[in-house]
């Protein structure tokens, strides 16, 4: 099981600024260890839900950096709302984590 994501959602007006840090090697399939290629291993899809309703989707390739960081902004959020993020990789591994939207400073 992959390590948990770090998710932070901060309110700016009625828009939640969501930042996610995922723990994943994101192997390109081109890197060598000794003289053997390290096989492709990367996150393919990401989706985010606001109180269970999907608000953001992404399909990505191995060109995303190791331990990916993403930020996106969700409309119509308020403090205490639940933001959950799920990723799946090319080996079928999956991870979901959630956080609460916090009031901005």
């Amino acid at each position: 099981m992959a390590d948990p994501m770090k998710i932070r959602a901060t309110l700016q007006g009625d828009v939640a600024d969501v930042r996610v840090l995922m723990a994943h090697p994101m192997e390109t399939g081109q890197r060598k260890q000794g003289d053997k290629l390290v096989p492709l291993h990367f996150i393919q899809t990401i989706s985010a839900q606001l109180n269970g309703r999907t608000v953001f989707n992404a399909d990505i390739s191995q060109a995303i950096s190791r331990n990916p960081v993403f930020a996106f902004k969700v409309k119509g959020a308020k403090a205490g709302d639940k933001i959950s993020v799920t990723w799946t990789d090319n080996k079928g591994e999956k991870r979901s984590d959630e956080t609460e939207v916090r009031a901005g400073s």
Partner: protein
Amino acid sequence: MQQTRRSVIKAGGALGLLAAFGTALLSPVRALAAWNKGAFEAKSTLDAMRALGVNNTEESKEIQIRAPDIAENGAVVPIDITSSIAGTSAILVFIEKNPFPYVGSFDVSQGAVPFVHLRVKMGETSPVRVVVTAGGKHYTSAKEVKVTIGGCGG
């Protein structure tokens, strides 16, 4: 008492039917959104765009790409993309000179602001091309990023 029990069962049945109908309605959308293998395996930006059904693009100044002019480390290049085009539904990103240029698509049509921040690997100096889909049309913009140390091999 008996009547109440009946109506509860009836209501439950209707709810079940509604749920089944809902799933049937949603599934084609899911199928469309499947990970586009052809586009991700394309070796040129043009081929990747074709696989994604992007044929005509129009240059637009309403797409802001914030990325470093010179990236010292090609393994982590931060990019911020904001679209001011009304009705933006998706943001597509391509690193033209990477072995596989298509980096990904970000669907913001369901309640997200047309903005995304991501960090990418770049093999060498290359234009970062962004395609924005809005109202069935495609708009594009690009920014050159110079890379001193590549981030693909190693």
